[in-house]
């Protein structure tokens, strides 16, 4: 595990901590433009943290694989003959060439196109052309298997991987907020990913694409044209005075509309049949069934906002889609959209959900079209000698709200539109970047907030 010591000469611990002030909401714009900080992010955030890989339904059979990334390391996510999911660095151990050049498919083994080295689905090196002749039988294949992620675990069918053996279990990493987020997707039952991942590139820093998902302030303005086109009733989805924020360890957060506690208390008394009937009558939010409270927690079940699983997995539209924000340099981000429907959904329901996903988000989405340029111009401004000194002011709602803790241990705020989620994200980012190891990160985590925030 690289420790970032080399680039740390440029950015010491105190300097990193000074890049964001949680007490004022002042963010140093260099976090969106500095190359050395970006390299440190790849080591201290992406190689260290748990990264979303894919859903079970994308690789159902042995040999099925899906290509994803941990930071800028391309990985093969593959199910082997025993049904085990492996995450292998897509780089031949001989010279480093990519083994898989398709983005998905089914393989019996992975053969390098350079010299023909052949690897099993678990990454074992099984064949080397000329092993007995050119290598004189002296090559120790056992030490040249593909590099594997240190840990690969799943929650509710969603697979994650980390390169750091010191990382906590996925369950502990996700915490309440992560489990609420994934539970949101599965609240109505088992799910599957629809074929087709939308992918596009935006010239922005990945963190701007992440912090924007907590931002319900921009919706009425940035996306005004999606409202006036008649596509979406922005006021109807926004609920500006009924916002629920949840904050958790490692920078995870949820922000957005939430069912008020009193209304949820009423829902909690209803049978699943009554909830389904009411959802049909009102054509509003789908009321979640009783079992959802188990998956999402007593406060989490009230959320219809946007979870971000630190660092870069957004769960959106109450779980219809997830979107990865993959870093490609300080000024470039790939967006990957995964669309999720109930397993075995009736064709009309499935079609309606797929249409919503197609028309709302992705590069051609009526809503999403207008985000990219805000992010790329914000990133661009962070590069100027003067521009990068000007700061960003994330102070909305600061010191105005009460953070509470539920009996289940969830930390949350019932409030109006705010910037708590963005502040929590950059505070988490700062802690990850300043810590040299998992032990140091865990020790430096701030207590989860209770009281005035």
């Amino acid at each position, binding site marked *: 595990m690289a420790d970032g010591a080399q680039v740390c000469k440029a950015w010491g611990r105190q300097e990193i901590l000074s890049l964001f002030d949680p007490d004022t909401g002042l963010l140093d714009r260099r976090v969106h433009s500095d190359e050395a900080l970006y390299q440190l992010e790849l080591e201290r955030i992406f190689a260290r943290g748990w990264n979303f890989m894919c859903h079970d339904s994308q690789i159902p059979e042995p040999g099925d694989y899906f290509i994803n990334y941990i930071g800028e390391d391309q990985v093969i996510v593959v199910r082997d003959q025993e049904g085990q999911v492996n995450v292998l660095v897509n780089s031949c151990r001989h010279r480093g060439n990519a083994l898989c*050049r*398709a*983005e*998905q*498919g*089914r393989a019996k083994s992975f053969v390098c196109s350079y010299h023909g080295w052949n690897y099993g689905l678990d990454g074992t090196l099984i064949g080397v052309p000329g092993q007995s002749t050119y290598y004189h039988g002296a090559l120790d294949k056992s030490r040249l298997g593909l590099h594997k992620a240190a840990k690969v675990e799943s929650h509710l069918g969603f697979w994650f991987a980390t390169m750091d053996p010191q990382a906590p279990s996925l369950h502990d990493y996700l915490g309440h907020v992560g489990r609420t987020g994934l539970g949101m997707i599965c609240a109505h039952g088992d799910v599957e990913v*629809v*074929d*087709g*991942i*939308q*992918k*596009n*590139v*935006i*010239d922005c820093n990945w963190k701007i694409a992440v912090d924007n998902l907590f931002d319900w302030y921009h919706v009425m*303005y*940035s996306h*005004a*044209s*999606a409202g*006036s*086109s*008649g*596509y979406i009733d922005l006021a109807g989805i926004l609920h500006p005075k009924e916002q629920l924020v949840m904050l958790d360890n490692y920078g995870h957060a949820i922000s957005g509309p939430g069912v008020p506690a009193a209304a949820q208390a009423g829902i909690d008394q209803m049978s699943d049949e009554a909830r389904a009937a009411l959802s049909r009558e009102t054509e509003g939010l789908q009321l979640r069934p009783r079992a959802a409270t188990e998956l999402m927690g007593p406060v989490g079940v009230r959320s219809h906002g946007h979870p971000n699983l630190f660092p870069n997995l957004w769960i959106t539209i109450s779980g219809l889609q997830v979107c990865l924000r993959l870093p490609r340099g300080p000024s470039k981000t*790939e967006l990957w*959209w995964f*669309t999720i429907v109930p397993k075995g959904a009736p064709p009309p329901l*499935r*079609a309606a959900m*797929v*249409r919503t*996903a*197609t*028309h709302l988000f*992705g*590069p*051609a989405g*009526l809503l*999403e*079209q*207008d985000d*990219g*340029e*805000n992010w*790329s111009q914000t990133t661009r401004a962070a590069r100027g000698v003067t521009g990068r000194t000007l700061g960003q002011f994330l102070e909305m709602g600061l010191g105005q709200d009460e953070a509470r803790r539920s009996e289940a241990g969830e930390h949350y705020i019932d409030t109006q539109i705010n910037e708590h989620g963005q502040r929590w994200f950059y505070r988490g980012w700062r802690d990850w970047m300043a810590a040299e190891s998992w032990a140091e990160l865990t020790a430096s985590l701030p207590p989860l907030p209770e009281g005035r925030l």
Partner: protein
Amino acid sequence: MDTLDRGRAAAPWAGRPAAERALVQFEIEQFLYAEAALLDARRYRDWLGLLADDIHYWMPIRRTVTNSDLEREFTRPGDMAFFDDDRTVLEMRVKKLEAGSAWSEDPPSRSRHFVSNVRILDVEGDDISVEVAFHLYRTRLDTEVDSWVGRRVDVVRRTGEGLRLARRHIFLDQTLILSTNMSTIF
């Protein structure tokens, strides 16, 4: 007709007399050029006027796959796509462009729609199926450049009011979309 069937010989139509084919070829090409000119001139409301009520405007997602997996190169109808629009959604796209708050198109993009390699695939009643190669070039602001190249299968329909576009299936030659957005009409 399966619009995914690439490189298919245009058999039935190809057997018709050359004079008849040349006339239709000219007519269709002129229609497609005029339609492209409306889009490049940002006359979106006029462009809507060229659409049949049952238009299907669709761009599936293309993937990098191995030769053995080519049947999965494009997503299928009903799975995820970049565009899967009927007339109502296309009207919303135009309303959005006219709204005065479509920031991704204000200042507006500059686009040029090139249409070439025009091949009439089939004529069935009033519906003329045509395959074209396209190049849609767009620039935005000072530095944004997008170059979208691909294959299109359109259905152009003869009606009492003239030719109308009844289907546009767009098969882009990109997998990862190398653009901030696709706020342009293809």
